[in-house]
Structures are given as C-alpha cells and as structure tokens.
C-alpha cells in the first residue's frame, strides 16, 4: 500500500500531476496565457525543489523504485520541462489557436516521464509510457490545421501505437513465461529459467520490448518516423520529444538491462551493439545534406542515441554514470539548439523557421543567439570545451574500458561524418550574406524569459565543458545509488 512516506517520496510526481490538474481547471475558468505559463513553471520549479525532501525519505512505493536512476531521470526531466516551459510562451505568443493547452499536455507528459523513470513494474512502465506518449500526439499535432503538423501527428500516432503493441506483446511473452510483471520478481523467476539454457520465447519477449522502447528512442531501423515528426511538430513539442521522452525511455531501458536477467544475455547485448552501431553511423549519414534544421537534429538524435546505447551494452556502474553524463550533456545541447530554433521561429506564425537559409548570417543580426547555437552544435559534435565533449569522452572511455572496439570505431566514424553537417550549419550562421528576414519579434516579458533561459543553457554548456567536476561527482554518486 501507498504510505505517507511513499507519497513524500513521490512528491515531484504528485506536484506535477497536481499542477496539471490546476492548469486544466484554470483553463476552464479563464484563459490566460502568461498565467498558465507561470503556473506551469512554478509547479515544475516546486517539484524540482521538493526533490531533496523526496530523496531524503528513501521511500519505495509499490510498482516503483526510487533509486539513483530515478532521481537522475527526475532531475533531468524536470529541468528540461522547466526550460521548455520557460521558452514556450514567447513561441506561442503568435499562435492563434488555444495556447494554454500546450502547458497541460506538457505537464501530463512530464508526469508520465517521472513515472517512467521510476517504474519497477511492467504495468507502471506501460502506463507511464503511454502517459508520456499520448500528450505528445497532441503536442506534435498541436498545429493540426497546418498540413505538416497533422502529418507528423498521424505518423507518430500510428507508428507509436504499433511500437506499443510490440512492447505489450513482449511483456506478455515474458509474463507468460514467468508469471511476473515486477522487474525484481521477473529477475527472480527468470534466473532458474536461465540456468536451463537460453529460451527463445523469453529472448523474443525481451527483443520485442527492446523494439518497443527502441522505437521511442528512434534507434535504427525503427527510426523512420523521427525526421518527419521532428520537422512537422511544433518546436516545443519536438523538444519534448527530443529531450524528456528520449531520456525517460532510455533510463527505463537501462534499468531493464540492469535488473532483468533476460536482458543480460550476451545475445541481446550483441543485438543492441549492432543496433547502436548502425544507428550512430546511419543517423549521421542521413543528416549529411539535410537543409532543414529540425530534420537535421532529428537525424542527429538517432546518432546520439546510438552512442548512448553503448552505455546499455556495457555493464557496471560506469555505464550508469556514463548514461547520466551523456544524457545531461545531450539534453542541454539539444535544449540550446531547439531553443534557438524556437526563438527564431517566435512568435509562432505558420511553419517554424527551420530552413537553413533562415539562419544565414544570424551572427551578424543577433550574435548571442548565434553564439548559443554555435555552442550547442559544437557540443552536439563533441568538441572540447563544451559539455558534449565530456559526454563523448565518457562514451569512448566506456567503450574502451570494455574493449568494445567496434562500437568505439563506430563512434569515431560517426563523429567524423557528423562534423560535416554540424559545421555546415555552424558556418551558415556566420556567412556574411543575409538570409531570409527574421520575423518581427515581439518585445516583452516572454521574450526576455526565453532569452534568459537560453543564456543559462549556453553558460551551462560551457561550464560543463570546462569544469564538469560537479556534474561528474553527482552522476557518480547517483550511479552508486542505482
């Protein structure tokens, strides 16, 4: 049963859910964009602040496990959500449809993500995943009157549902073999089964779960939706997809791999290695000549998740630490890049300004924005003195420590290919010839908040690149607690 301690332990989740309800009630009462946004930001900030309290009680609510991974996921999720919520008002200022519902969907998705990273039971995993995904359908198709947003929504819905079906079927297979749904119990039940040799049914179940989660992570060959949805969805929705959804799903995959023995088989590791390899190479190759920035970042996310999968393949505490560090740096850089896209596309007016020519000569129009973009791209490319390098360093270190030379080779090759398009985008920002005229941005509080957030992100990218010690220490501590 749920005790009070458990409730305290779940405080962030509760606060976010409560904020969601408040926002919903608020909307029914009176539409007020700034107010809703403020409420959302406040709720998320409150949830973030309640974390020390929640962590201190060391609760273990049913179906969940509040360990280091969960905390890692919670912090990253809440922080990204906070940044997104802070940058969205400026973007949504010009949206002619209902603006406030976006925050509601965002909060619901965050709730799902928080549950997902803490889940310790198949049912919890399933519910949370869906709670994360369903609002995303809405967010991606938020601008459903424009063709691309609708297209993105439909594609994401159909394919995601299919992936969910795979996931469910995989769970069902595991359940049928063991009769257990809780991760820990699954592990206990599977251990004797494993001693009798490999079980194709069980492995099949595990494979299907990996496929289901791999879809959300846009691992090759389940990646095809990614660029279309990234491009079609409104920028904040894409950002949620790229950060919160990815990190939460990744962490749950990591936990599964760590806890459930069926996932520990060498065969599955080899499979994931293979998927990782083709993702990191394929994702980068796909992005090579892409001219739409959002699409390009979609492809690049395929590659990045490919790198990250190395942390899943390799066992040991270092892998959790690596995941944490890499996710952190990746999320920060992605927030920066999409943040700039959102800023340039603000106020919302039809399609997002995501074509490369929109960014031509950005440095000479708004140097700070271009600087943030440059930093983000350098970070994504893993150039030293940015956060991304620390992440890449960890990934390579992990691969080397475990002598996974092929994967390390993949990282090197992928990075080399990746540089091409990151540099291409980067230099566009500095070209002297002016590109398309930017939109007339509306001065005001929303814009200032958005800019401030971007500044914080940029500083963070640099800071993490130059002095990553606090992050590393924190992640190492979390990894020990996992």
């Amino acid at each position, binding site marked *: 049963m749920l005790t009070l301690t458990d409730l305290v332990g779940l405080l962030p989740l509760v606060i976010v859910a409560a904020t969601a309800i408040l926002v919903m009630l608020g909307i029914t009462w009176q539409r007020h964009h700034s107010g809703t946004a403020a409420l959302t930001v406040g709720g998320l900030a409150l949830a973030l602040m309640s974390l020390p309290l929640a962590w201190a009680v060391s609760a273990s609510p049913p179906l969940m496990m509040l360990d280091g991974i969960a905390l890692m996921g919670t912090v990253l999720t809440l922080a990204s959500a906070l940044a997104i919520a802070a940058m969205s008002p400026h973007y949504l200022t010009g949206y002619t449809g209902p603006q406030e519902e976006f925050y509601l969907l965002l909060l619901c998705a965050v709730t799902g993500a928080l549950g997902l990273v803490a889940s310790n039971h198949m049912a919890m995993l399933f519910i949370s995943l869906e709670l994360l995904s369903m609002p995303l359908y809405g967010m991606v198709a938020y601008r459903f009157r424009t063709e691309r947003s609708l297209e993105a929504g439909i594609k994401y819905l159909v394919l995601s549902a299919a992936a969910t079906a795979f996931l469910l079927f995989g769970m069902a297979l595991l359940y049928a073999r063991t009769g257990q749904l809780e991760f820990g119990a699954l592990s206990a039940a599977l251990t004797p089964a494993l001693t009798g040799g490999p079980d194709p049914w069980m492995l099949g179940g595990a494979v299907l779960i990996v496929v289901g989660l791999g879809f959300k992570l846009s691992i090759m060959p389940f990646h095809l939706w990614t660029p279309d949805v990234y491009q079609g969805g409104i920028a904040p929705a894409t950002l949620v997809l790229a950060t919160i959804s990815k990190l939460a799903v990744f962490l749950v995959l990591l936990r599964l791999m760590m806890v459930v023995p069926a996932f520990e088989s060498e065969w599955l590791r080899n499979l994931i290695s293979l998927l990782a390899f083709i993702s990191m190479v394929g994702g980068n190759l796909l992005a090579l000549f892409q001219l739409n920035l959002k699409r390009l970042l979609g492809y690049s996310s395929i590659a990045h998740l490919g790198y990250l999968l190395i942390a899943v393949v390799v066992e040991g505490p270092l892998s959790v630490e690596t995941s944490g560090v890499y996710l952190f740096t990746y999320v920060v850089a992605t927030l920066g890049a999409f943040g700039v896209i959102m800023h340039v596309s603000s106020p919302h007016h039809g399609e997002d300004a995501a074509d490369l020519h929109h960014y031509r000569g950005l440095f000479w129009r708004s140097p700070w924005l271009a600087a943030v973009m440059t930093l983000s791209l350098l970070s994504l490319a893993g150039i030293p*003195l940015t956060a991304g390098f620390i992440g890449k360093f960890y990934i390579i270190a992990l691969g080397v*420590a475990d002598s996974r030379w092929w994967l390390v080779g993949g990282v090197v090759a992928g990075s080399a290919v990746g540089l091409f398009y990151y540099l291409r985008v980067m*230099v566009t920002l500095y070209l002297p010839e002016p590109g398309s005229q930017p939109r007339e941005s509306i001065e005001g509080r929303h814009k200032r908040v958005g800019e401030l957030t971007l500044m914080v992100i940029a500083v963070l990218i640099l800071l993490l690149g130059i002095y990553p010690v606090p992050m590393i220490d924190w992640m190492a501590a979390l990894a020990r607690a996992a």
Partner: protein
Amino acid sequence: MILLWLILIPFFGGLLCWQAERWGQQAPRWIALGTMLLVLAASLVLWIGGDFSPPGVSESPWLLEWRVPWIPRFGIEIHLAMDGLSLILVALAGLLGALAVLCSWNEIVERVGFFHLNLLFIMSGVVGVFLALDLFLFFLFWEAMLVPMYFLIALWGHSGSPGQTRIRAATRFFIYTQASGLLMLVAILALVFVNYSNTGVMTFSYNALLNANVPDGLAFWLMLGFFIAFAVKLPVVPFHGWLPDAHAQAPTAGSVDLAGILLKTAAYGILRFAIPLFPEQSQAFAPVAMTLGLVGIFYGAILACGQQDIKRLIAYTSISHMGFVLIALYAGSELAMQGAIVIMVAHAFSSAGLFILSGQLYERIKTRDMRLMGGLWGRIPTLPGLTLFFVAASLGMPATANFIGEFMVLFGTFDNAPEVVIIASAGLVLAAIYSLLMMQRVHFGGEYSQGRLAGPDAREYAMMLLLIGLTLAVGLYPQPLLDTTASMVQPVVALFTDSAGLAAQAEEVE
C-alpha cells in the same frame, strides 16, 4: 602560473579584440599584435633566464611546472610544464602569431575584431598543446584550436578556384583532424585504462603513463592511434588531403599559422608523446614511418611541381619538408632529432615568408594563379629578391636554417638507415626543382601584363627582414637552439635506442 598566463593571455586578448572593434578598425589589430608580442616577450624572457643544461637524476626535467587537479574522477589534472622544446615552440608561436597579425593588417578589412579573436584563440590552443602534460588536457587543446582555424578559413578565406570553396576546405581540414584526433583519444583512454588495471590509479598524467606497462600487441595499436593523429596534422601522405586545400583557401594569416605552427604541433606530439610513450613500438614502426616520410618527400615534391596556384605549391612543399622531419623523428639519433627541430623552426620561417610574400603578391596582382604571373622581377622592386631568398631557404641552401636542419637529419640518419638517406637525398634535387620552378613561373620570363607595382612598404619589408635575419641566424649559429632542446631530446633518443637494444637482445635470446 606563468604557463597558465601564456595560454590565457591570447585567450583574453582575443575576447578583447572582439569587443574592441567598436573602437575602430585599428584597435583589434594593435591589441592582437600587443598580445602576441607579450607572449613572445614572455617566452624570450624565460629563454634568457632559463637553465637548459641536462637535469640531474633527482632534478625535474621541466623548466617550469604548474599543476592543479581538474577532474579528480579520472585523475585529470591541469598540468602544464615547459622544457626547452616547448619553450622554443611557444616562442615560435608568439613570433608567427605577431607576423600573422601584421600580414593581415591590410588584407582583412571585414569583421576585424572577430578575425583577431579567432587568430588569438588559435594561438591559445597551440600554446596549450605545447605546454600540456596531461594527456586529456593535451587532447583538449589539440582539438580546441581547430574551431577558430575553421572559422578563419571558412569566413575569411579566398574564394579560390571554382568548385573548391573555402568552406569545403575548412570542413575537410576540420574533419581530417578531428577524426584522427578521436583515434588518439581512444588510444589515450586505452592507455589510461591499461595503466589503471595495472596500478589501480586512474591518471592521465604524462609522467605516470610513461611507465605504463602495456601489453605488446595492444601497445602497437595505441602507438598507431597516436601516430595517425599526428600523421594527419604533419601531414604524412596519404593523410595530406586537407593541407593543400586549406592553404589555398586560407587567408595569409591562416596559412602562416597553419604552416608555421600547426604542422609543428604534430611533430611535437610525436616527439613528446608517440615515441616516449611507446618506444619499442615506435622502434619497430620506424621503417614504416621512414618509408612514409620518403613517400611524403617525393610525393609532395612531385605534386608541388604540378601546381598552378602558388599557395598550393607552397603547401605541397610543406608535405615534402615534413617528410624529412618524420624520417628524423624515427631515425633514433640525437643529431637527426635535433635536426628535425631545426627543420621545424626553419620551415616555420621559410614557409611563413613564402606565404606572406604570396599574400603580398596577391594584394598587388589579385591572383594566385601562376599562369597569370611571370616577369614580375622587373615590375615589383625588392619583392622578387626577397622571394628568391626564401626560395633558396626552401631548397636548403647552406647558411639558411633549412640546410642545417636537413643536413643534420641526413647526417644523423645515415648511420642507422643509409638507404633512407640515399633516397631522401634525391629529395634535395627535387626541392631545387620545385623551388626554382616557382621562381621561374612567377618572377622570371616575359611579363604577363604591363605596369609597375608598388614595392613592399615598411611593414612588409620589416617582416621579411626579420624572417631573413632569423633564418640566417639559425642557419649560421643554431647552437643556442640546439642547447635549449638538447636536454629534452637526449632522453627520448635514449629511450628509443635502448628499446632497440632490448629488442635485439630479445632476438638473440630467442
């Protein structure tokens, strides 16, 4: 602490330049010049005050050392140290940095502040490379200097021949170096982890890793990882593809930095890291490296002869010259290694001189295509004569530093690898061919077009005189330079030859 400042001064100077643009076009130039001269002066003061005699057993081999923990999780430190070699190269960087600022005085008129920001950031990175003793830190600087160089080429480059845009050249440069750098990172990490599993201490410290006991098979691959990274930057054929494009498209200052200093970081890396960390493997690898060096000498020379773009020609000659350096580094004799250092310095002077001259030529006739030149001797005062000097230096005329370097290399190598020297000596003829060919096409022959052109102004003349003076000084009295680096080179040679002895013993035992 002064070491840290050597890195930070250009860094902050760069930021200042960027902001100084609002005070006018000249401000960034003066600030950048002052910054570079400050670095140069600091290193010269250190040089004059330094004691470069070989250290005693218990003494530190470093002239200056500065270390603070950085990322304790991996035992990463900010560990800077300076010995004779790094000092020479830092001073060189300061000098060429100042020249780079000077030679772009009139060339760069757009976005001056940002240009100098990049120029100074490159210096910062280069100085960092020469001073870093922690492998992580070294790698960091190694990669960090790419970004400003990329911008320098991509934003201020010449729009060269059709189909070869400057952005493409810059990207190619970046990808080549970064990808190979990642290989080095992999090798560094593998080395660190091997050391960790042996000793239980996670550290990136150079001194600690020198004693890492790496299994033989793995060590070879790790050595290769280091070598490839350095080979790309040196550059060694077949990894040279980025160089001609980058040079041809870069602004003069970029070419000066690239040829003068950036290429030297590779030789420095081999000397400092690749050989001392893996002496036995390097010894085993020496024949291959020397062969690559030979290939480089000839390939670079042959291609240099076929170029029409004057800067491409000079770029290919760099490949040829660096072939000598590569041979020397793996020759395993003090004479040769010292010779390599002299070549590094000499090549910095002569290639910088040639690049600056071709920049000046470009300012006057607005082309780098040698088919559109000819007969310039009669049209421009003084400039052709200066060119002839650097051409002579480039072909290894005695009394220039290049001669001393090349001949020390050849003398030093002859004992161990006479066949290499015999083949490499043919490179001397080729050097004469490509160097004079350039003279021939640009300055001699019939005049392509009419009209007299302005001779060098005081700034240009002073730069050239400085370089000529230095080339001759090193050519006639290189001993101060050699004395400075001797205490660094001798241990490396000892490591190298000892491992050769060990290998020979092992074979005898078998």
